């Protein structure tokens, strides 16, 4: 179950944050996303020597906390996508696919001439697409 997705700009400013649970610990999720940014910065500044780093760096599992897992993805413009999920067994390939679709939706949203780079993403189409991607993620990894 994906509980939250977030898009954070290159100055660590939030561009889009959406939670998918009914419970009202939305603030806790925001806090988790915020803390995970530190981990992202750490990974970015000390790149692991093993493994090549691709252009769209999939950062992988940032840190498991309580019952959540946090995954990160970095674009080449230093925009970060954060995914918080409660699933215990999540396949790496699924998360990669998720981020790929998410990246495509993000690119379409910022190509809108009325979108101001650096400001929050207000596109309803983007929100709908993200909900769609989140739902298919849940389905593909279930069972």
């Amino acid at each position: 179950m994906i509980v939250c997705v977030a898009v954070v700009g290159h100055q660590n400013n939030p561009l889009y944050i959406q939670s998918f649970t009914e419970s009202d610990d939305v603030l806790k999720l925001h806090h988790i996303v915020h803390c995970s940014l530190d981990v992202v910065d750490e990974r970015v500044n000390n790149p692991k020597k093993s493994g090549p780093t691709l252009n769209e760096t999939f950062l992988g599992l940032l840190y498991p906390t309580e019952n959540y897992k946090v995954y990160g993805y970095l674009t080449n413009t230093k925009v970060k996508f954060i995914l918080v999920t409660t699933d215990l067994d999540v396949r790496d390939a699924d998360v990669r696919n998720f981020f790929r679709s998410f990246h495509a939706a993000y690119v379409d949203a910022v190509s809108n001439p009325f979108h101001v780079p650096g400001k929050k993403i207000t596109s309803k189409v983007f929100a709908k697409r993200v909900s769609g991607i989140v739902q298919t993620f849940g389905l593909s990894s279930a069972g």
Partner: protein
Amino acid sequence: MAPAAPKSGDAIFASVDRVNAELFTLTYGAIVRQLLTDLEEVEEVNKQLDQMGYNIGVRLVDEFLAKSNVSRCVEFRETAEVIAKVGFKMFLGVTASVTNWDTEGTTCSLILEDNPLVDFVELPDTCQGLYYCNILSGVVRGALEMVSMKTEVTWLRDMLKGDDVFELQVKLLKQIPEEYPYKDDE
């Protein structure tokens, strides 16, 4: 030498130089954004886009006639079909359909299901009165004026405002006969 037969829209589209669609879309988006920043009034921007389209249309029609080799249209119905099938295909890469003819045959609607100008675009709440594709209405008006038809072109449906297609209404106001600037010498 016999004149070449009129080529179909697809054939001409395949033979002209092409540009990347995303570049075209993003350039047009930048133009609209800049107009909004400079003029601030949505109505003014609509007018400017129409004027820009008009200037494009008066020049575009010569290229259109040169490349497509269509024969003279006998009546307005034919003109509308040619614009929809050959004109739009040649310049935008999409075909429009012609519907909603009125009884006199002077008003029709061009329906565009796909419009490369509006890829990725979402109108913000502050610009709800904006006709984003108004340049197209200017182009059609300008082009028809150069072939002696005075028209009024308006948008009936707009996908950016929630409708399912783009509908452009073209109304023929009058046919202007050719006027010579000098009197015939006796």
